[in-house]
């Protein structure tokens, strides 16, 4: 059993090696990116050992190494939790990161600071690992904030661009609102349960857990871009494509869902929170799917589909199936990272062109990318026996057969159908038909870094779902019997979405584009959300900061009330009380007059 903890610690420790190497001459070496990539691949392979052991023995492990501080009755120590969730997630994350690192070698090869980029990506991975394996809330918070800050740095990678900086700040703002929820939950646990250790929190019974759960919910909403706090995710596409692939699709954004999964033992019996979660997830998945329908930026579409899938995961938590949600996290990581990498390949080949209307006919020019993109899209829509199928189909089935909010269910089904629709749209516009890009562009996808990285994830997108769901034991009893139409529902809505979208695209392609309808504008303008929230709120807040806090209170009233008024009254009263008026001439004149008069009177007296 010793091999278990030691090998997992080796995995985690290995990841820090390239960071430490950043102080040596290794860091100014051209080979640093490859070094990082190889380290991660080794870490992945080593991490398979404990995962296999876990799958074999099914034994949770918790290790506490280093005692940090004891405050009154609360002990905080460095503590790792290797249970089902972290043991499955660690290899998945490492595998995906490995591919993305290799992809970045190709994608970022002309960047002068490529070494720093790799260091940032690796730092992000480390914070993610901290988040996943943390056993107490403080450590979780370190990882939680760490991924947020690394996302800020990576979105703002091209810091010369205003958009990138704005997007980075936006991401931090929304994440920070979520963090408030996290801190609230921490505060509640501290005051009421006097612990931040996960086991101890789960052990304690408390009748009313609404406050901490709402806090955690808020945290998840911020981090996983759920409705209300969602706009940062599509904006985050300003970052380089590898960043979108790693952070904003497969790892960081699922941290919120992961948090809810971690704290699921508390949520299990809280019906109110479950309903809220369910509705929130359903709204998110539908709303973002609607937004995805009319976007033209290929990365934006994929980003919205990520948001939609995150909504689906939250729905799954809402129907009390955290294990399914976790399965979807794992499977989703493969094909979503690959979709981003494929769009990265297209974007790079077309000289940074992201508009799908200016692509077309890429199946001839980029056959490998096309294949992967189609497989990825099919996996995303839940095509049977691709990776997405194993989780998505199960989620829809379970939702269909559970006694739950039918409205939320309907929303989820509609969103599922839309997934197929916007996937069709990408394939139709980018890959099929006639080329609409500039003919002078030379397209070449035959770089081993690109091919290998996508290929690895391609195999993942086909087989990973099977492998993962084959190897893990089902934790909840699956629904064994159900009517045909329920069983086929997921597939039917998806196929319906495909056919409808294809027909519409074919039919509309040669029609004249009329003045857009209100529905189109709603979808294209992202539900007017950024217009309202990103204009009105900051404007009022900044105006308040300027007008009322700064100008009115600080510069006027506080100046007036204390210093200015005191000096004013002093001045006035001193003038009123004193006889001195400063009329020097008059004083001298009167002095002279009296003097002469007295002299005269004295002299004439005698």
């Amino acid at each position, binding site marked *: 059993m010793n091999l278990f903890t030691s090998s997992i610690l080796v995995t985690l420790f290995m990841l820090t090696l390239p960071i430490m190497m950043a102080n040596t001459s290794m860091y100014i070496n051209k080979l640093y990116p490859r070094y990082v990539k190889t380290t991660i691949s080794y870490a992945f392979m080593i991490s398979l050992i404990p995962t296999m052991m876990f799958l074999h023995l099914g034994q949770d492990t918790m290790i506490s190494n280093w005692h940090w*501080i004891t*405050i*009154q009755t609360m002990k905080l120590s460095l503590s790792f939790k290797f249970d089902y969730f972290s043991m499955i997630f660690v290899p998945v994350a490492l595998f995906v990161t490995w591919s993305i690192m290799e992809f970045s070698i190709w994608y970022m090869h002309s960047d002068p600071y490529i070494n720093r980029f790799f260091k940032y990506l690796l730092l992000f991975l480390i914070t993610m690992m901290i988040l996943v394996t943390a056993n107490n809330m*403080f450590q979780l*918070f*370190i990882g939680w*904030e*760490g991924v947020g*800050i690394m996302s*800020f*740095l990576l979105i*703002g990678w091209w*810091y*010369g661009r*205003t958009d990138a*900086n704005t997007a*980075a*700040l936006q991401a*931090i*703002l929304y994440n*920070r*609102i979520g*963090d*408030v929820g996290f*801190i*609230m939950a*921490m*505060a*509640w646990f*501290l*005051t009421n349960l006097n612990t931040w250790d996960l086991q101890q929190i789960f052990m304690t019974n408390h009748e009313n857990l609404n*406050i901490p759960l709402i806090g955690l919910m808020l945290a998840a909403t911020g981090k996983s871009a759920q409705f209300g706090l969602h706009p940062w995710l599509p904006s985050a596409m300003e970052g380089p494509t590898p960043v979108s692939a790693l952070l904003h699709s497969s790892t960081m954004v699922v941290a919120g869902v992961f948090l809810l999964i971690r704290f699921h033992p508390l949520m299990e019996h809280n019906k109110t929170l479950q309903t809220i979660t369910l509705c929130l997830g359903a709204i998110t998945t539908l709303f973002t799917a609607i937004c995805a329908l009319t976007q033209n930026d290929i990365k934006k579409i994929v980003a919205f589909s990520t948001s939609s899938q995150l909504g689906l995961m939250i729905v799954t938590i809402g129907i009390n199936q955290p294990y399914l949600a976790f399965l979807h996290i794992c499977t989703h990581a493969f094909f979503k990272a690959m979709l981003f990498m494929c769009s990265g390949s297209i974007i790079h080949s077309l000289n940074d062109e992201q508009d799908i209307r200016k692509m077309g006919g890429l199946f001839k020019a980029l056959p490998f990318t096309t294949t992967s993109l189609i497989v990825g899209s099919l996996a995303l829509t839940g095509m049977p026996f691709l990776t997405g199928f194993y989780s998505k189909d199960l989620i829809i089935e379970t939702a269909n057969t559970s006694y739950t909010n039918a409205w939320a269910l309907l929303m989820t089904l509609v969103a599922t159908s839309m997934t197929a629709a916007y996937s069709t749209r990408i394939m139709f516009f980018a890959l099929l038909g006639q080329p609409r890009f500039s003919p002078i562009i030379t397209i070449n996808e035959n770089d081993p870094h690109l091919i290998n990285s996508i290929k690895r994830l391609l195999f993942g997108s086909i087989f990973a779902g099977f492998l993962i769901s084959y190897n893990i034991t089902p934790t909840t009893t699956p629904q064994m019997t159900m009517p045909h139409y329920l069983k086929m529902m997921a597939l039917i809505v998806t196929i319906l979405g495909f056919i409808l979208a294809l027909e519409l695209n074919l039919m509309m392609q040669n029609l004249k584009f009329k003045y857009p309808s209100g529905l189109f504008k709603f979808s294209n303008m992202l539900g007017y959300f950024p217009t309202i929230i990103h204009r009105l709120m900051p404007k009022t*807040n*900044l105006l*308040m*900061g*300027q007008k009322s*806090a*700064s100008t009115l*209170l*600080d510069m006027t009233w*506080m*100046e007036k009330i*204390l*210093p200015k008024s005191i000096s004013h009254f002093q001045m006035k009263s001193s003038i009123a009380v004193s006889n001195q008026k400063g009329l020097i001439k008059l004083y001298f004149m009167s002095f002279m007059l009296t003097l002469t008069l007295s002299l005269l009177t004295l002299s004439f007296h005698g």
Partner: protein
Amino acid sequence: MLKIIVPTMMLIPLTWLSKPSMIWINTTAYSMLISLIGLTYLNQFTDNNLNFSLLFFTDSLSAPLLVLTTWLLPLMLMASQHHLSKETLTRKKLYITMLVTLQLLLIMTFTATELIMFYILFEATLMPTLIIITRWGNQTERLNAGLYFLFYTLVGSLPLLIALLWLQSNLGTLNLLVIQYWTQPLLSSWSNTLLWLACMMAFMVKMPLYGLHLWLPKAHVEAPIAGSMVLAAVLLKLGGYGMMRITILLNPLTDFMAYPFMMLSLWGMIMTSSICLRQTDLKSLIAYSSVSHMALVIVAVLIQSPWSYMGATALMIAHGLTSSMLFCLANSNYERIHSRTMILARGLQTLLPLMAAWWLLASLTNLALPPTINLVGELFVVMASFSWSNITIILMGINITITALYSLYMLITTQRGKYTHHVKNIKPSFTRENSLMTLHLLPLLLLSLNPKVILGPIY
């Protein structure tokens, strides 16, 4: 205690007798050595305190502040070198003498046993600070700033003298070690309310409390770099330190009297944070951010729970180092751009990448990134205020969000974006500056490993 005080005093002859080329190096090196002596006080091996004599003692509350004070003198000296490079030798020596005097007074303030002695030294620190601000500030507004600084603090602290005299005649002693056993419960009455106000207002002004904070942005903006550093890092902490010391006399009245001040602080921290969002002046932004952070300390001290005291102590140290570092960074920009306006210094990351790294780390510590001690401080304060009243989490949450926003806004405006044409031929960052930033950051990072030493006497 003399082994710190005497060497610090001897820094003055050292300054005046050194060769002209050696004045900076000698004083910096020796003051650094002195600060290393002070480090031993962090090891508080008894639960109570270390008594050095009848006049001086330290306990785990004053020791971190003492170390912070001694640590800051070499840093101030390093930061001021460029600022004074055009002055004559005598003025340089005078300047260093002022800094050394200030440090001497601060050390004695933090270790004073008698409250009256504490009061006298507390007031005495005003003089060197005032001279530093009004003599070496950059603009004519410095005179006004000095006036505000002096009058706010004096008016606030004169009632304290009367209160202390009354307490002395009533209790028979003002010895901090004895007084906690002799103190009578302060019941609610008009005269006691006045006593409470007299005792607290001096420190509230010093902190500063929102509403009485006007002197701070002015003084910070106009002060030369060393003045800003010592103001932000240590002088504000005198307020927190004094409050924590004197509250033992004021119970149980504090529970009742705290409400208006809590409200002011909670409200004020949001107001000052939102002022930060609109600042164009870099130093003013950092100054307002100090007000907002110190409001947290006021809240924590007024709540008076173990967690809040720990949070307040940790936050004071963390904020001392962070804000001092931010002022240093602002100064290094100012020395290159010759303006404090942020928009004139944008895009500096391209030109000064290492400086950008310092900016990043300073901003991150300012917004309390885990696991820095800033977070430890803030988190403890939030926990304490949450258990005091659940609703405060809303205000705290807003403040946390805005703090993150303005810290990163500051980072983005100064470091990111395209650089402007007039900054093309600026000087590279000097080793002096880089080591200055490192010396700020190292304690921050090392203390994160073991925050126990700065959690104060309750820990």
